[in-house]
């Protein structure tokens, strides 16, 4: 699996209904049939084809219970559920679903290869395809070198990885991930996010639940926020997350004089109502630091008995394996767009860069004020300062070793969809 710029897929909002829940309620009862807990309370939502949908909320908010009802592991007390238009207990429906539970519940006596083989057989996948997919998935989750070790000997993170692989063995149309990043290291977390985005691009539907909001906020298209078994808020990621009351301008490092100039300019333009509230030097994220360290260690060929940095997304999960052949013109257009778009990914993280000269800073200010000058990187789309509808830029990521095809196709989609 490669790391790539996280970007939500564009949900086909007019797509077919994949999941429909109406007034879904689940009350757990004790031995004497007295109500013990109402885990889910009359929630209604739907998920459509190609959406990446988030069920968010704190522990005990009803996320896992909802998912278990969607999978037929629990029966609703009231309300209706349809998955692909059928009850969740329908065996035919389950052929199209991949499920990763909140913890990996695996047969400890099987090794990774046997585990995937077992689940592949449950889907009646033919031996050739099964063998190929097992190899690709093990490569993707970085467990090829420990494929013959019993799963009981795996660390929690490694078990999560094999759990993820088993959820993908059938190339599911609907992937249900319950707390997918729990127990994973930052690399694994990044890979899961990339995978979700990749699947979204392919038109697959993904439903994920999490209480680690930072892990999913840059992935989901639409979400519901649960608390106490009820939906407290719902909407697209943009509508729920965009803070329309503030504007952030990010530039290279500026000196005090320039900052004062900017403040003066803003006050002048807003008749003194607004000004620069806070100036800070951004810190590199811990996640990025971690990724860089691991990357360096792997370049130095340090051995590990745990999971390796995962490989490329399994080809059977990638768009190019199963998408219908596109016209030559479209491909050329994609390729051209991709070439243009690759450049921003090569920008070094800000923390690694030396301070910029004051002259260049002055030019930048002038650009901002006049709105005419070229941005530092001509290929990057010009952000419109003050446009509240735009979501925040994704964090820059070290793309060393990134598969160009994946990034290219990702960026191509960005361009086509006109997002970010």
């Amino acid at each position: 699996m490669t790391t790539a710029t996280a970007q939500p897929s564009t949900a086909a909002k007019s797509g077919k209904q994949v999941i429909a829940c109406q007034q879904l309620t689940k009350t757990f009862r004790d031995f004497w049939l007295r109500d013990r807990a109402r885990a889910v309370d009359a929630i209604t939502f739907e998920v459509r084809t190609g959406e990446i949908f988030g069920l968010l909320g704190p522990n005990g908010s009803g996320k896992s219970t909802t998912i278990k009802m969607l999978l037929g592991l629990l029966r609703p007390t009231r309300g209706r559920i349809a998955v692909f238009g059928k009850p969740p207990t329908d065996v035919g429906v389950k052929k199209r679903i991949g499920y990763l539970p909140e913890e990996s519940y695996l047969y400890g006596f099987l090794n990774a290869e046997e585990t995937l083989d077992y689940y592949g057989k449950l889907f009646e996948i033919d031996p050739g395809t099964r063998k190929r997919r097992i190899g690709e998935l093990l490569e993707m989750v970085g467990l090829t070198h420990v494929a013959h070790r019993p799963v009981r000997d795996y660390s929690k993170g490694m078990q999560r990885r094999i759990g993820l692989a088993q959820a993908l063995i059938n190339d599911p149309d609907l992937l249900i991930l319950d707390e997918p990043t729990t127990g994973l290291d930052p690399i694994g977390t990044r890979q899961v996010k990339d995978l979700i985005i990749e699947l979204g691009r392919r038109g697959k539907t993904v439903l994920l639940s999490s209480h680690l909001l930072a892990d999913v906020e840059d992935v989901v298209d639409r979400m519901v926020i649960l608390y106490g078994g009820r939906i407290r808020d719902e909407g697209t990621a943009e509508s729920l997350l965009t803070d329309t009351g503030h504007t952030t301008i990010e530039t290279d490092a500026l000196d005090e004089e320039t900052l004062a100039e900017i403040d003066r300019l803003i006050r002048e333009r807003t008749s003194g109502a607004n000004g620069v509230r806070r100036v800070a030097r951004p810190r590199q994220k811990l996640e990025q630091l971690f990724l860089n360290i691991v990357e360096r260690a792997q370049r130095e060929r340090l051995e590990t008995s745990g999971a390796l940095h995962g490989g490329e997304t399994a080809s059977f999960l990638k768009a190019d394996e199963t998408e219908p052949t596109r016209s030559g013109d479209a491909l050329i257009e994609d390729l051209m767009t991709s070439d243009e778009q690759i450049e921003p990914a090569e920008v070094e993280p800000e923390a690694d860069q030396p301070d910029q000269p004051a002259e260049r800073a002055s030019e930048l200010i002038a650009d901002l004020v006049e709105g005419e000058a070229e941005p530092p990187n001509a290929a990057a789309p010009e952000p419109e300062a003050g446009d509240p509808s735009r979501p925040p830029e994704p964090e820059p990521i070290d793309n060393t070793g990134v598969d160009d095809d994946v990034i290219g196709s990702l960026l191509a989609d960005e361009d086509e969809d006109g997002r970010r």
Partner: protein
Amino acid sequence: MRLADRIRAADRAQKSRTFKLIASAVVALLVLAAFATYAIAITSSSNDPVTAVLGELTAEDLESENVRAVADILRSSTPVATGAVAAGVLLLVILAWVWLGLGLTFLVLALASTLVVGPLVYFDATRGFGLILAGILALTTSFVALLEGLRMILGFSSPVCAVARNVLAEGVRMKLSVVFIVMLIVGLAALPGLLDGEQFLRYRIQSFMQFGIGGVFWLLAILTVFFGVATVAREQRDKIIWQTMTKPVAAWQYVLGKWVGVSGLAAVLMLVSSAGIFLFVNHLRSLPADGELAPYQAVGSGAVSNDRLILETRVLAARRVVNSRLPTPFDYEHPDFQTRLENEILERRRTQNERFATTEAEYLEFREELLKELIARYRSIEPGENEAFFFDGLQQAKADNRPLTLSMRIDVRGNNAPDVFYRVTVLPGWQDRVAIQRQMGAGVIQNFTISPSAIDDEGVLRIEVINGQPRFGPQGQGFIATFNQNAIGLPDEAFVVAYDVGDWRLNFMRGVFALWVKLSMLAMIAIFAGTFLSFPVASLVAFGVLFVAELSGFLGKAEDYYGYNDYEGNLQLYKFIGTSSAMLMHWLFRGYSELKPTENIVQGLMLPWLAIARQVALLGVATVVFYALAVFSMRRRELAIYSGQ
């Protein structure tokens, strides 16, 4: 090249098609050459003791029915034919290993085993240990090969096969089941060492089969129950089932897969164990019996020792059992009985109660009591008295000219003391009868050899039993009769004749199959319990069912011995509940308890396919019922639980 690389290369080689083809050809040629050498050696000389003994039998020897019987049995299994069967089986086993991709693995194992076991067996001090080790290695390798074969058969991409295959993997990797498998293999390998070499050969063989087959069945029954419960209940407890049941697996497929896996493991273990028992019994058979100088060579030329005779005709046999018929047909429809019944009722109305047996229920109850009483009265012989009994349908025994065995137990009402002996005379046949006189302990079965010449042309054998010993005294003392103090009873189930009708090897196979059918039903019961109960509770329930099923024959006697009423005839609630429950259990599991393959094999009694088919059908229906219950339980059950706060 490192050792690990060499091993990997060898493994790749033994899995290649070319290797398998070449190895198959080489093995086939070797086995064929070995068999040809053996056959030539046997037919060209008197190397085989059996052939030698048969060749030495004179016309005078063959006048004896016993000698003829044993000679017939020995002739029916010629060494060349036996050798051909053994060579065929050996070839199949080796080919199975080769085509499972384990040819070189087993070759290396066999060589290593020979190197280790050979020196151990060579020295007297370590011979016993060496033989046990050899037995363990042989059983283990056979088990592995058979298991791999079954796994290969279950290699299809389907939920049922996948679940079943997974159960097999679980069976050999889960501590719980591995403990039982090890106990089984080590126990079976060590069992021959526990036999008493001073015992009669027939007893040694019977003991080995009794403990071997019985022990294997009980170990496998416990394993099946524990493992069947564990594979389902633990999967639910550990939530592993979530990931299976969220795949396209229907409840019926899941339960069926589990059952196929558990009963498949039981089948493999049963097959390996029974093959081991069978081969060792054949080895024991080739040892000298009591009264023999060498195998099949009795002391005194040409004669057959009593130990050998009983072994060949009663133990390693498949005998048909015939129950006795009373001369008067005791049944409800017989005019004599109806007259007797009417007279008895009239008599009681006159002397006891004028409304006696006026209701339908009372009438039927009295009719049954009277019939039982009349039969019991006939089967009870007063001191000095005699009664005749008949055994029908013995045409085949007469035609085959093989001796029959009369198995007989006497019961003395209220005095079945083991230290009191009774004099009994048995007179078989219709004319020129030769009396057989014995002293018998009450409640103990004794066997009498009966000549087939005692059977008449209609295939009926008449046997007269006298309570006492009338005989002519020595030196013209005249007729002396010694009678017992008490009446003796001859219960129907313990007064039978039996004769050999089939091959004991096939009988052995049928018995093993019947035992496996029992285990399969237990597996389904265990799986059913595991679908809705926790592991300890489900194990308890499944074991309860196992014991009730095993004891259901005994429970069926509750009505006779315990009843529903007190001494005054009043219905007692606790008795009603106890007896009704026992009778219900008996009714439910009668098919299970009536099938006693171990007893049949040990006693050399025939297990006809028809009888097995009937019992198997009964057990099959029970298995299907439990299967349906398990599927229902799985469909109704919520597999997930509340995980909130």
